[in-house]
Structure formats: C-alpha cells, structure tokens
C-alpha cells in the first residue's frame, strides 16, 4: 500500500502545514506550486493521492482535475480537492469533474488526515 501524496498548492504556509501533518503520519509528501505543469508532475510522480488546490496560478484546479480524468493512465487517481472558495457551486462543479473528496479551507488537521487515510485505503 503506497503512501505517496502529491500536494499541488501555491500558498507556502499551507504547503508547509499540510506537509507537516502528513509527514508526521508517515506519508511521502511531494509538492508542486503552479498550475501550468501540474499534470506533468502528476505523470512523473504517479502518487497514490493528489491533493489539489483550486485557485492556482496558471491553471485552475478544475482544469487540472479534468486533465487527470482525461488521461487513461491517471483516470483512476484519487483526488482530494481543497479550496478556499467555499461556495456550493464550486463543490458541485468539483463533483461533476470527478473529484473523489472535496474539503473547504480552513480545515481541521485531523479531518484532512482521516480523509487522506480513507481515500488511499479504499
């Protein structure tokens, strides 16, 4: 069972926080901080889980999710979306795009940990 997580996020403090939490739980966390070549990072790293921000410079999280789902090799990749735009329509849009889980910022560290564990376990 893999423990590799790819965090795609542009806010340095959030990257640090999420990395700290997951690392302490034994996850192998890799990060990527812009939208342009996020899909390349996913392809290169082949993580067991992708944590994706929505408001990314260069390309939105939704577009990246669409690219992941369109790639035959990556289509089954579990994706957790974290967004600061906590509106209902964003959640709907995310679910339509084929996201596995969706969480709004700010979040409880324990919740994130639990969700990540459950997503990779299943």
């Amino acid at each position, binding site marked *: 069972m893999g423990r590799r997580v790819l965090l795609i996020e*542009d*806010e340095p*403090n*959030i990257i*640090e*926080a*999420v990395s*700290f*939490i997951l690392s*302490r739980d034994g996850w192998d966390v890799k990060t990527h901080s*812009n939208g*342009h070549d996020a899909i390349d990072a996913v392809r290169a790293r082949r993580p067991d889980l992708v944590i994706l921000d929505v*408001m990314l*410079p*260069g390309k939105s999280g939704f577009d990246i999710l669409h690219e992941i789902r369109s790639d035959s090799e990556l289509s089954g990749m579990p994706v957790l979306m974290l967004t*600061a*735009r*906590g*509106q209902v329509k964003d959640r709907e849009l995310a679910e339509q795009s084929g996201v596995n889980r969706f969480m*709004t*910022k*700010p*979040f*409880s*560290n*324990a919740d994130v940990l639990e969700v990540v564990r459950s997503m990779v376990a299943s």
Partner: protein
Amino acid sequence: MATLNVLVLVCFLYVTFLFAIAFGADRAARRGRGTWLRSPVVYTLSLSIYCTAWTFYGAVGFAARSGLEFVTIYLGPTLVMIGWWWTLRKMVRVGRSQRITSVADLISSRYGKSNLLAVFVTVLAVIGTTPYIALQLQSVTLSFATFAANEPTGTELPSQQSIALWVALGLAVFTILFGTRNLDANERHHGVVMAIALEAVVKLFALLAVGVFVVWGLAGGIGETLARIDASPIAAWEVSGSRWVGLTMLSAAAFLCLPRMFQVMVVENEDEGHLRTASWAFPAYLMLMSLFVLPIAAVGLDVLPEGANPDLFVLTLPLQEGRDGLAILSFIGGFSSATSMVIVAAIALSTMVSNHVVMPVWLWITGGSAVMSGDLRNVALLARRISIAGIVLLGYLYFHMSGGGTALAEIGLVSFAGVAQFLPALMGGLFWRAANHTGALAGLATGFAVWMYCLFLPSFGPSSALPQAVLDHGLFGLHWLRPQALFGTEGMDPLVHAVMWSMSLNTIVFVTVSIISFPRPVERLQGAQFVNVFEHSGNTAGWTGGLAQSEDLLIMSQRIIGAPQAQALFATAATRQGLAGYLPEPSPDFLQELERELSGSVGAATAHAMISQIVGGATVSVEDLMAVADETAQIMEYSSRLEAKTEEQERTARQLREANQKLTQLSVQKDAFLSQISHELRTPMTSIRAFSEILRDTRGLKAAEKSKYAAIIHDETVRLTRLLDDLLDLSVLENGQVVLNSQTGHLDALLDRAIAASGLDKRTFRIERDRLAEDVMLTTDLDRLAQVFINLISNARKYCDSASPVLKIAPKRQNDRLLIDFIDNGSGIPTDHQSMIFEKFSRIGETKAGGAGLGLAICREIMARLGGDISYLPGQSGAAFRVTLPQSPDTAGSTASA
C-alpha cells in the same frame, strides 16, 4: 262633351304614367341601377324645361304678333350652348366641387357664404319666377277652356280659376312626392328628371305633329306654306335691331340664371361630359321646336277667324279642322311644357327658400339646439314641402289676381329680365377674382330696383301697380325718372329700355363697388376656388353608382376603421336592405350611418369629404379642406403628445433597462467580490488554523519549529488585518466618503517617505531619481498620495523579475499637470493583463506576494479623489505606471531650479 271627357281621361292617364315613370326611375336610382337614367340624352332632354308653355303656345303667338322676333328666344340659349359651352362647364364644375344646391347657393357661396346675399337672391328669384308659374297655369286653363268652348253643347264647365287651382294642387303634390323624397346631399331627383325628359319628348312630338299637319295637311306642302308666310302680315314686320340684340341677350342671360335651368343644368348634372352632348343636341332640339312656329302662325292667321288668340293656334288649328286626336296630343304637349316647368321651378325655388330662409330662421328660433339632434332632417324636409306648396300657390295667386289677360310672351320676358339680374354677380363670381360680396349685393339691388320700377310694376298695366302720374311724369315728378324713359332715353321699346338700364346699372355698380371695397378672407379663398376651379378640382368622374361605389366605400372604410369592423358594418346594412352578399346599396341612410361611423375615427369633416369624394364624385370644398386641416391639426397635436409620451416612456424604459443591467452587473460583481474576499480571508485563516492545531496537538515540537509556526500565525494575522484595512479603505474611497486632508509639501520629501515605508532594500533594489524634477511643491492630500507611491514601489519590489532590479521615478510637468512615472526594468505586465490590473483582486504574474490584489484598485480610487489619474504605460522597458496630478499654475511656478 265626348272630346272633353276623352281629354280629361287622357290627361289623367298621362299624369298617372308620369307618376309611374318618376317612381320607377327613383327606385332604380336608389338601387344603383339604371345607367340609362344617367345618359347624356336624358340630360339634354331635361334641359328642355327651358321650353315651357310659353315656347309651346306663346312662340306662335309671338310670331303672329312680332314676326321673326320669337327666334331670339331660341337664339340666346343656342349661342350660350355653342359659344359659351366652357362657361357652363365651369358652372357645373363649381357646382359639383362646392356642392351647390341652387343659384342662390352659388352666389352666396362665392361671396363668402353670405346668407344675406342668399336671401336676397332667393327673394328675387321667387319674385321673378312667380309670374312665370302663373303663366303656365294660365296656359293650361286657356287650352282647357279652348277645348270646352269648342264643345257643341254648353254643358256646365268648371271655371278657369278652379281648373287652375286643381292643376296647381296636382303639380304641388307631384313635386312634393318626387322632389322631396330625400335630402340627398347632391339634390338630384332622378324620378323628376326622367319625367321631365319624357315630357320633353312628348311636347316636341306634339309640336312637330301639329306642324306636319299644318304644312302638309292644311297648307298643302312646303312651297305653299312659304307662299302663305310671304302673304301673311308676319313677312311685313320690321325687324328692330335693338330689340333683336336685346332679346337675344336677355334669353341667353335667362338661360344661365333661371333657377330651374340651374337646377337641371348644374344640380341634376350627373357627369360633366353630358354637357358635351348637350352643346349640340340641345340647340338641335330648340331648332326642331322652332321649325314649325312660323308656318303655324302664318296658316293660323290665314285660316282662323279674326281675333282668335294666336297664343292658342297650336291647339285651335287642329280643333278647327276637326282633328280631335291631334288636338288632344297638342294639349298634352302644352300640358307637359307647363307642368315640367312648374315642377322644376318649384323644386329649385323650394330648395332656396328652405335652405336660405326657412332653415336659418328656424335654427335662429330654436337657438341651434336642433343641430345636434336628428330631427333637423325632418324639419328640412317639411320646410321644403311647405315651400313647394307655397311657391305653387303664389303662382296661382298671381294668376288669380292678374286675371290671365296678359299675353304669354310678355309675362315670360318680364320674368326673364328679372332673373337676368343675377348674371353680373354670377359671371363675375366665376371669372373675376376681385368680385366681392358688397359689389354683388349692390349690383343686384340696383338691377332689381330698376327692373321693378321700369318693367315689373308697369307690366301690371297703367294705374294698377304704379300710378299713371309716375308713368307719365316720373317718380316724385322728376322727369328723368320716368319708368319707361329713364334719364331721358325716350322712344325706346319698354322691354329693351328696362333690360338695358337694369343690366348696365347692375354691372356698373357691381364692378365699381367690387373695386372700391375689400373682400373678406373667406371671399378671397372662395373667389380663387371658383375662378380657378379647373386647377383646384380634378375632372369629376361619372357617377359610377351602385355596388361598385359600395365596394370603394368598403375599401376606404377598411382603411379607417379596420377590416373586420367595416365588413361587419357593411354586411349588417346589406342584410337590413334585404340584399344577399356583403355589399349594401349606397342609400342615403347607409351613407349617413357610414359617415357617423367614420367620424368617430377621422372626424366629421374628413368623413364627409371622403364619402362624398366616392359617392358624389365631388371634389372637396374649401370649407371641407379647412375643417379637415383643423381636425388634422388636432390629431397631429394629439399624436405628437402621444409621441412625446411614448418617447418619455421609452426613455424611462431604457433607463430602467440600463439600471437593471447595471444592477445585474453589480450583483455579479458583488458575488465575484464576495467569493474573492472569502478566498482571500480563508487562505490566511487556513494557515492560522492549521499551525495553531499543530502547535496545540503536536508533542515534541522543536523550539525552532514552534517559533517558526508562531511567526507564520502572526504574519497571517497581519495579512488578514491588512486585507480588512484595504477592503475598508477601498469601500470608503469608492463610496466617496473619504475626507481629504490637503497639505502642501515637496515632492522629493514625499518620495523619500514612500520609499522608506515600502520596505525596499536599497542594496538590492536601485532607485533612479531626478532630484531636479522632484523639486515641486504640491498641495494635495499628501498622505493619500504617499499611499499610492508606496503601493507602486512595493509592487515593483514584489514583481520586478530583473536580476538587478532598478526602479526609475521620473516626474515631469506637462501643461498644468504633474506626471510622475514609475518604470522598472522587469519583464513588465503582459498586454492581456494591462487592462485588468486596476481591478480588485487582480494580481500581476503567477506568484503571490502577500497582497490581496487590492493595491492598484485603491490607487486608482485615490487618484480619482485627488483629481488626478493613474494609468499603465505600455511599451516601456518594464512595468510602467504614470501618476497624473492636477497642478495649479502658482504652485507649478514655485519650482526652483538649482
């Protein structure tokens, strides 16, 4: 007695036949059928009412007494018909276009619709016509008496007076029946006209029959007849030149002015083109009528005993020869001549009397209240019927009083001279624009006064109407005022004398007064309408009649009140008339109903004008046009008001639409703004929460980690606070609630302050300044301006991607403005972002530099408040912003150059 009985029977049958003809023609006309009613032949024959009993009987008497002079009576109309054909055409056109109902109406209408003139003409016409009607009654009674006298047994006969009364009553009844069936706007009487046309044929046939009998039956051929004429006293008569000219002119004038002639020639005219036919056919008719006058007169003088009334030769010659059938025919011919004249004259005069005398008086008495109610029509009809009865009765009274002694021709000529007084006013009105109301009234009055004094009153005989003293020595004993020798013109024929003086004085007064007095505006207008009638009115088409007209009316009505309503209206009317299909006959009732209906949409005058355009073939009169213009003006005013209202509503709607669009836009912007704020707030809060949870929950954290995470929390709260400050600042600036604190200071000091506050490290970031140009005094809110500078310098620090970043600050003066450019040496802002950088939450480039993207938006708001501007300068080496400030001349002048 048998002959007399037969005569009475034939007379009765003839009258019944006339009633039937008139009734049938009326019915056919109302059904819109019978185009034969509208033929030029009928028109020409109807003109023959000129030939009354006077012509039928009197011409022979005239010839027997005065030789060839009788020809003048035929010559006048012939000359008018052939030579003055265009005058008649003009009269007909005017009559049509102005919807003239009588000669009085024509004259009054021409001279500014003057009712005074109308009343005057009406009274004169009645006075002039009454003897003429009496003359017809006299001829009928005389001819009846002739028959009676011829009876072998002296059976008891009705007196002449009672015959005349019965004839008068019969004529009144006929005229009322067929002359006032309806108040048709065009005053056309198809039944009457048809009856008259038939009588014209009868009288011509009768006269020709007697003539043929006399020439070939009595005289024994043409040669013999001519010989007898040569032998008779007729040949010996001297031809008086002045009398010839005078009589010819008189009959020509009378032909134009006689009310009954005007009635058949103008009012009953169906088509202007009929005049063309009549111009040759009517002279031909007159020629046939006059063909056997001389032979009958000559043979009569020869055959009949001395002292026989030459006025009755036409009747007495066949009787003398025992030709009772021919005599009856002759009687019927004379009867026809007399009755047709009385009928038409009564119609013409009653129209004048009721329209110009009775109706105005009645309206005056009732105060005009009846105009609005429907019984006006009934009153008008009643007035006309009473007028007819009155006029015929007047004729009878004249006959009763004068005793019937005067020669037929003399009464006729007196009457002619009377109505001929209308001529100057009539012709002047048609051809002379300067002719006016005052002139016409003065001329007419003068002419009639002279006619009365010189001809009419003396015609009653010496010492009856005028004292013998006046006749002999003049009025008030003034010698030059003798009625038959005015101004000393002695030795003239009394008739020629009266005609000459009355006509010439009439004309002179009319012309002189017209020249020296001024016409009213309506007169000028009407004058132009009458004189230039051919320019103002199109050629009037013939009366198309019947259903074709209804079709035209329907087409017009559909345009006005809409197809469904118009069709329903027409269909209902058709059903009411008992007709299959959807088109009713254009009956007067229906036309009135239609006019009322259309009035609701286009106004009464317009509706009337439109309908009569189609039905009457009439052109629109000036009054109509003026009324239409009034209505149009009202409608235009109304519609322009509506238009203004519509415009206003449109403007309001547009404003509302724009406001709505703005609101929608604002709502979208607000949503986007809230979403942005939410994101900007949640991001630092996420870090704060995450790290505070780490600090709380994680055991065994290193001290360095603890302090680092606490620092992050601290920085993020500072960021949050700054964000909230910016939001509030922007909100205050945008709402215009900001209070500006104006101060005066140096630009270079302000820039020093801004650079220091921006936290820029001068060792890694070089700033190029122009101290010389910075030596400018500013009077503005210095703190706010510093805020803008700090923002721009901070942006350069955050976003300039050059390895050795340089920011150039270059102030310069341009006219009354101060420009301060901030140009760095980075890669600048991509063109597609340049337009967005001043919007809220927009960020340059991909990296976040801690700002929420509100900085430039705030700068823009501040500069707007300071009366200046901030803009991006494209095409520079790097990112370039220009701050523009208004600079008053005095502060600009304080610039010191070192």
